[in-house]
């Protein structure tokens, strides 16, 4: 007896009881659907977090005095007593580093009003100091105008690049390029503005004026605490660059070998890692609930298989009488339950991926297809089919042919 014969038989018996089979199929589909949709939804959420937390370029490393995101209790005292990161340290780092490129400062010096002619913004515009690498390091794109040139930085020119929110607040009808805005009374010429970047958890990223750091350092002082941003060149080289960077900074800042780093290093990876624990928990809950639903469906399959065995006692008896082995009977019923589970699983996976992705439409993030859970689902469904089919199949195989033939 070959496998196709067995398979055909099981399909036949599924078709013989259309109502019953379709109900069982429905139950299994719903079970798989629960697992897959929960899984997809969490995956979508995860992707959303990762996307929004990609504030910097993929290979960008930020060094700062204070940690950028913190969960749990803070030891604020420890951070506060650290020495500042200064422009001098950044320039030394620039000279000493071999693997890092695109080194630039990252500091918001003020939050204040910006005015243009008779228009004035609310006092909530961040005045940031940077150099020609700032926009690239923080993944801003120039919409019109130009980026800083090295000469702008070297000569501390009074030029500015403004964020999309500032454009909409001050320049309704005209182009901002070439216009002069005033910050705390000082004039700056706008040379460019950036594309809209949007929000992270309700905070806009577009409310800033970027000015050469040399210009701002001349006003607010060179010894203010700054952050340093640099690029590793590629994502693979981030770890290596962090090592080099840590060494140089510890030497520059004269950190005792026995003491921990007195600065924080942040990458995109570490930013999005903050949510890993949270999404991990959601995955677990989704899996648990989905698994419970599937368990219910599996028991339903087992129940129906038992009924099926009872109903076909006579058929089993006849097959045994004409020479069917126990193995043949077992595989017949086992395959029937596996087929039901596979078909139901397939429908459930389709529906689950579809619904889970509705969440992605809602969050306006990309559509994800959890291939791993789809493949896992198919394998899992085989296991479920075997698990809940094995007892009925075993029961069928154990039937005494004589008793079975007599059964009514």
């Amino acid at each position, binding site marked *: 007896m070959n496998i196709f014969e067995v398979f055909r038989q099981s399909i036949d018996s599924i078709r013989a009881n259309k109502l*019953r089979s379709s109900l*069982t199929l429905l139950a299994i589909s719903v*079970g798989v659907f629960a697992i897959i949709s929960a899984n997809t939804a969490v995956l979508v959420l995860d992707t959303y977090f990762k996307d929004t937390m990609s504030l910097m370029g993929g290979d960008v490393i930020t060094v700062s005095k204070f940690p950028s995101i913190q969960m749990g209790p803070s030891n604020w005292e420890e951070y506060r007593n650290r020495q500042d990161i200064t422009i001098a340290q950044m320039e030394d780092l620039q000279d000493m580093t071999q693997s890092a490129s695109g080194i630039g400062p990252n500091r918001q010096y003020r939050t204040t009003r910006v005015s243009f002619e008779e228009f004035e913004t609310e006092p909530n515009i961040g005045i940031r100091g940077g150099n020609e690498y700032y926009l690239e390091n923080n993944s801003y794109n120039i919409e019109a105008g130009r980026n800083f040139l090295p000469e702008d930085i070297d000569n501390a020119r009074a030029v500015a690049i403004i964020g999309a929110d500032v454009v909409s607040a001050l320049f309704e009808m005209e182009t901002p390029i070439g216009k002069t805005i005033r910050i705390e009374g000082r004039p700056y010429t706008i040379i460019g503005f950036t594309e809209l970047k949007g929000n992270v958890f309700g905070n806009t990223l577009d409310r800033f004026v970027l000015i050469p750091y040399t210009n701002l350092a001349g006003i607010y002082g060179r010894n203010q605490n700054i952050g340093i941003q640099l690029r590793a060149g590629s994502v693979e080289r981030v770890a290596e660059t962090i090592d080099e960077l840590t060494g140089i900074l510890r030497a520059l800042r004269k950190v005792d070998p026995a003491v921990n780093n007195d600065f924080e290093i942040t990458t995109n990876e570490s930013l999005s890692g903050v949510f890993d624990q949270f999404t991990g928990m959601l995955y677990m809950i989704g899996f648990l*609930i989905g698994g419970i639903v599937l368990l*219910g469906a599996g028991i*339903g399959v087992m129940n129906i298989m038992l009924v099926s065995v009872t109903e076909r006692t006579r058929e089993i008896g006849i097959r045994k009488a004409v020479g069917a082995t126990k193995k043949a009977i077992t595989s017949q019923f086992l395959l029937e339950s596996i087929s039901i589970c596979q078909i139901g699983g397939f429908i459930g996976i389709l529906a689950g991926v579809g619904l889970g992705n509705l969440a992605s439409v809602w969050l306006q993030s990309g559509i994800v297809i959890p291939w791993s859970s789809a493949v896992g689902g198919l394998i899992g469904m085989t296991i479920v089919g075997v698990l809940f089919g094995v007892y009925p199949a075993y029961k069928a195989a154990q039937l005494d042919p004589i008793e079975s033939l007599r059964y009514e």
Partner: protein
Amino acid sequence: MNRLLISLLEGTKIAFSSIWTNKTRAMLTTTCIVIGIVSVTAMNTISDGIDRSFEDSMDMLGRNVVFVEKWPWGFGGEYKWWDYRNRREMEVKYVDRLRELTPSASEVSASANRSVSARFRDRQAEGVMLTGGTDGYFETSGITVEEGRPFVASDVQRAARVAILGATVSEVLFPNEDPLNKQILISGQRFIVIGILEERGNFLGLEDVDNTIITPITAFGTIFSLRYGVQLAIQFPTDEALIDGEYEVIGAMRQIRQLDPLEEDDFAINKAALFEAEFQGMKMTIYGIGIFLTGLALFVGGIGVMNIMFVSVKERTKEIGIRKAVGAKSWEILLQFLMESIVICMVGGVVGVILSIGVTQLINQFFIAYMDWSTVLNAILICAGVGILFGYLPSSKAAKADPIDSLRYD
């Protein structure tokens, strides 16, 4: 009427006997229902638990209290700090004026707080929230002094250096002795402990509200400035009084501040309802998803019941034929099978509820869950509903069966 009762009784009897004859089958079907009902009930207890702990946290703010502060509690929207920054600060002396001007209020208090460290001999408590309050503060914040006494108006008047310790602080500073009448150092200043607060737990699962010390606001003012951060709390006797009271408070404050009718309020009215509004959406989303997913479990259980009922109807086609032939009405057949499905579901429901008690305990180990009678009642009602819903189709198929065909069925 009599016949309905008899056939209902008969139906139940037949249902039990048919369940009895197919023990394995009935057990498996019941298990499906149990799984469904346990997950739905667990979800229910979790949402009840969240609601209750949320309400407890809101009570920590004080019951039926309106707060008047310089800064509004920022939820959603843009926080216009540059507007709020220029507002005048709140003053402790507003308390008496507010008492006069808000006749429906039951208590008015002022308080200010800041984070300090406290010491007793060589033991130190860090990050303690020191609150300076007027004597009405105990009433408005709804805290109870468990041991010792609260401070009274005269203590406030003479700026007595007395302190009432929160449960956590008392634990840290006085692990094995009685704290009452001991002298502790708060930010280096000597205070006498006169009372200990009742333990209250965490606010929204975040901040330990027992890590606190309360002193008269005047004593607080001799160490720290009262120029900033004074909070006024106005308590009303009931929920309803609170709604009108809010307007009364706004009016009183405008009068105290002598605001022009055209001027905007230069103070913020804060209340617990703001928290509720903020978390409502999130809560609903979580509940919605939870109920949907656990509902699926119940749905699967229901399908299992339906499937088995169809089998049961098919197997007993002959029996149905005979019953009909000897005069059973269609509705009696319907009732018989419906009873069978309801009985299976109800048994599942009862077992499920019993299991849920354990599950609730389990969830409580790492999350919050709370089970009360309404949850139990819900579970049982849902089970009956599932039984009727999924039992109806098979039962009506049985009821509609043609007696002649049925009798001939093999």
